[in-house]
C-alpha cells in the first residue's frame, strides 16, 4: 500500500464493468441507470478483471466471477473511490473481494425485502456482524481520506439510484459531467448524514408512538426533510448550470414530497 503504484487491477475492473454498461446502452433497448458519460474511459486501455482466488468468502468469490451484474454494480457504486486509489495488486484484489461480498449481502437483503414484509434495514441488521467485519477489513486497506469516502459511499444505494434517475432524465437536455455528478452525490450524502440525526430523534424505530409523539414526529420530520432539501440545493447550485439546477430542484422536490408522504404513513401506522 505504501508503494505509490497505480491500482491497475482495480482500474481494469472498473473499466471492464463500465465498458459492459456502455455496451449495453448501445446494444440494448433498456438503458441501465448509469451516469451520463459512461462512454468515457477511466483508463487508456481495457484490462482483464482481477482473479478472485483466495476467498474472503468462497461463495461470494464464486458469485463475483460469474455475476457480471454484481461486479458492474460495485464498479459503479464505488467509482469515485476506486478511481482515486493507489494500491498494490494484492491489496486491490482483497479490496475488490470485500466490496463484492458487501454488495452481495446488501443485494440479497434488498431482494428478500422485496419479497416480504421485512424491510432492508432489518434484514441488514441480521447480517451486521459480517458487514462490520467487512467494513473493518476495507478500512484497514485504505488511507484516512479514502476511509471517509468509503464510509459515505457504502450506504449510498438509494441516493445513487436517485442520482442516476435524475441524470438519465436530463441526459439529452443538460448532461452533467463527472465532476458535477460527484459534487451532487457528495452534497447529498453530507446532508443525509445530518438528516439521519432527525430521523433518530423522531422515534421511527419504535413500534408504538403516542398521539403527542406522532405529532412531534410529523413536525420534526417535515422540518428536517425541508432542511435536508434546502441545504442540498444550496450546496449544488454553484456547480450546475441554470437548466441543470432547475431540473434537479424539480426532481428532488417531488422525491422529497414522496418521502415525506412515506414517512407520514409510517408514523401514522405506529
Amino acid at each position, binding site marked *: 500500500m505504501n508503494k505509490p503504484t497505480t491500482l491497475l487491477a482495480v482500474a481494469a475492473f472498473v473499466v471492464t464493468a463500465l465498458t459492459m454498461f456502455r455496451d449495453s446502452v448501445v446494444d440494448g433497448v433498456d438503458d441501465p441507470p448509469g451516469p451520463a458519460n459512461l462512454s468515457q474511459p477511466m483508463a487508456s486501455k481495457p484490462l482483464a478483471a482481477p482473479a478472485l482466488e483466495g476467498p474472503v468468502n468462497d461463495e461470494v468469490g464464486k458469485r463475483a466471477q460469474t455475476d457480471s451484474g454484481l461486479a458492474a454494480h460495485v464498479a459503479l457504486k464505488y467509482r469515485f473511490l476506486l478511481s482515486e486509489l493507489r494500491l498494490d495488486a494484492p491489496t486491490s484484489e482483497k479490496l475488490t473481494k470485500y466490496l463484492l461480498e458487501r454488495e452481495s449481502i446488501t443485494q440479497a437483503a434488498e431482494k428478500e425485502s422485496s419479497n416480504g414484509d421485512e424491510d432492508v434495514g432489518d434484514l441488514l441488521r441480521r447480517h451486521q456482524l459480517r458487514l462490520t467485519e467487512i467494513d473493518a477489513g476495507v478500512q484497514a486497506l485504505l488511507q484516512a481520506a479514502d476511509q471517509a469516502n468509503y464510509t459515505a459511499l457504502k450506504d449510498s444505494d438509494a441516493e445513487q439510484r436517485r442520482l442516476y434517475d435524475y441524470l438519465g432524465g436530463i441526459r439529452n437536455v443538460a448532461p452533467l459531467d463527472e465532476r458535477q455528478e460527484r459534487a451532487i452525490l457528495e452534497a447529498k450524502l453530507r446532508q443525509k448524514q445530518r438528516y439521519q440525526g432527525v430521523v433518530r430523534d423522531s422515534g421511527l424505530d419504535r413500534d408504538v408512538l403516542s398521539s403527542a409523539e406522532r405529532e412531534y414526529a*410529523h*413536525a420534526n420530520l417535515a422540518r428536517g426533510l*425541508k432542511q435536508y432539501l434546502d441545504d442540498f440545493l444550496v450546496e449544488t447550485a454553484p456547480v450546475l448550470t441554470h437548466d441543470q439546477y432547475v431540473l434537479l430542484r424539480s426532481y428532488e422536490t417531488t422525491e422529497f414530497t414522496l418521502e415525506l*408522504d412515506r414517512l*407520514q404513513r409510517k*408514523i401514522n401506522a405506529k
Partner: protein
Amino acid sequence: MIQRIFLGGLLIAAASAASAATNRPDGYVTICRIGESCSVSTSTNVAFGASGQFVFKVLTGSFNCAVATFGSDPIPSKSVKECSIPEGSSGGGGSTPPPATGSVTGSSCSTSGSQTTVNETIRVTSGTYDGGCRRFNAGSGLGDGGQSEGQDPVFRVENGATLRNVVIGANGADGIHTYNGAVLDNIYWMNVGEDALTIKSSGTTTVRNIEGYDAEDKFFQVNAASTLNVSNCIIHRAGKALRQNGGTTFKIAVTFDACDINTMREGVFRTDSSSSTARLTNSRLHNAGSVCIGSWASCTQSGNTSY
C-alpha cells in the same frame, strides 16, 4: 420560484407542527372535499390538504375546494384532500357529490407556472424528467398546435423512462410520443394540438394523474401493438378519448380507470382491429358518446357513472 417553494415549505412545516397528520389541522373542521364547492360567510382562514400537510388561504363566500384556489398542492401524492375551517367559524359546502367510485382529481399542476418555449423535441431516453409543473409551449418549429398531420411532439419518451409534472402549453403541437413504453405522471394539456399522446412503438405505456382539454380529434392515438394503462384522468372536450390508428389490425390492450370523460364528439374508444381490447372502470362520464366504437375483440366497462 425559490421564494415560492420556500414559502410553501414554511407553510407545510408550520401546518405539520399544528396537526396530528389528519386531513385537517387541529381545531379545524372539514366543510368539503376536493372537487366540491363550499362557502364561508365571513373572511376565514381556510386550510386545504391531507395527512398533516396544508396550505392556507383567507377566503370569503363560495369557492372550489381545489389546488387552483389555494395556489399550490401541499401533498400531491394524496388524491383525497379536504377544505377545513377553524371550529366555530361559519361555513358549509359539499354541493357537488364526490365521484361514486374512485377519486378523479386529474393533474395537480396548475397552468400558472413559468413557461418554456420548446423549439426542439425534448427526448427522455432513460430515468426521470421532472418538469416541476412548468409550462412547455411548442415553438413554431414543432407545429402550430392545429390538426395538421406531421407536427413534432414536445416530448418524446422512450424505453420505459418517466416524464412527470409537466404542463403542455397552449401550443401543444403533437403532444407527447412514446417509444418502447413509458411512464407519464401528472401531465396537464392546456389545449391539445394534433394529439395529446401518441404511442409510436410497442411497449407498455402507463399514464396517471393527467388532465387535458380540447382535443379536436383524438386524445390518445395508438400506432403500434402495445399496452396502455391510464388511471386518474380528466379528458374534457375531444372527438374521441382513444383511437387505434385507422385501418390497422394489430392488437392493443387499453385500460382506463378512475377517469372523468366529458363532452366527446364521437365516443371513448375506437378501433378497426378485431384483436384489440379495452376496459373502462370506476369512471364518470358526461356527454361521452359511445364507449366502444368499432370491432373490438373485447370492450367492457364496470363501476362507471354518468353525470
